[in-house]
């Protein structure tokens, strides 16, 4: 039993260290990938929303012109 334990112990420790470091690394890599995806998606959303904002302002301006133009006829 003693010999067996003596032989097994280093392997057990190695296994333990290996599994814990493996799962930690995996999580980190996964997090980094998600962060990169979120960043790029965020950027695309920002650019599109800015364009939308500009176009909305243009429509608002056109509406103001329309209001002025048709005001006298109502």
């Amino acid at each position, binding site marked *: 039993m003693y010999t067996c334990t003596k032989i097994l*112990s280093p392997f*057990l420790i190695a296994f*333990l260290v290996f599994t814990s470091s493996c799962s930690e690394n995996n999580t980190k890599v996964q997090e980094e990938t998600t962060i990169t995806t979120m960043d790029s998606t965020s950027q695309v959303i920002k650019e599109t929303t800015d364009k939308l904002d500009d176009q909305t302002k243009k*429509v608002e301006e056109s509406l103001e012109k329309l209001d002025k133009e*048709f005001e006298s006829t109502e």
Partner: protein
Amino acid sequence: MKQLSILSIAFLLVAAVAFTGFQQQEKDKKNKKEQLDNRNKGKKNKPANENSNKNDQQPGKKNQKANQGKNNSPGNNNGKGNDKNRGNARMEDDYNWDRETFKDRNKYKNQEKVTICHKFNDDEPAVTLSVSVNALKAHIAHGDVEGDCPNIRDDRYSDRYLNERNDYYERIQESREKVFYSQSILDYAIQRLTDSRVQLATMRTNNVPQVEIERKQVVVLELEENVSLLETLIGVTANLLANKLQ
């Protein structure tokens, strides 16, 4: 000797626990991936406005005139930015424009913000978001609660990841509100276009000078073009945001 045996048994136990934990984690990841895949598949198969109907929180309040105008979308539009696309933009706020409120639109647009704790359908951690007062009702209906999320430490994620995630969802929420505002302006513009066309037709029958009619027509055409572009952009943005904050 005895101590060593106990030590080795303890090691064995710890190793077994670690291994089970590791396996569980892998299983979770696999499940999460499957869920995402299914969701993406669903997104591809789902019509663009199906999701929006779920979030549609403003049926009766929207003015009927705007809806009428929507069906008479601006002149040579060729179906661009149709109702299907615009349906995605209908999310939470409720603007109801008329000439008076439109003049004061900045007052309505910059509504007071409230903090909510947005919960997700899966076991993902909730995020604290700042939303306009108008959007609060829809969030509460979704199961969110007013106020900051409870500060519970989730060891599955790093602080950096959680902060980035929060910023990401803040951005999505902000964009959603902008899309909704644009949609309301679009509805109002379509309604005004319909009215203007009727007015122009009346003017023609009433023998109003041609110069005056043409001048007004230029303004109407400009609005038509801008409305058409806005419809397209709303569709694009709404599709980008679809299924992003549920």
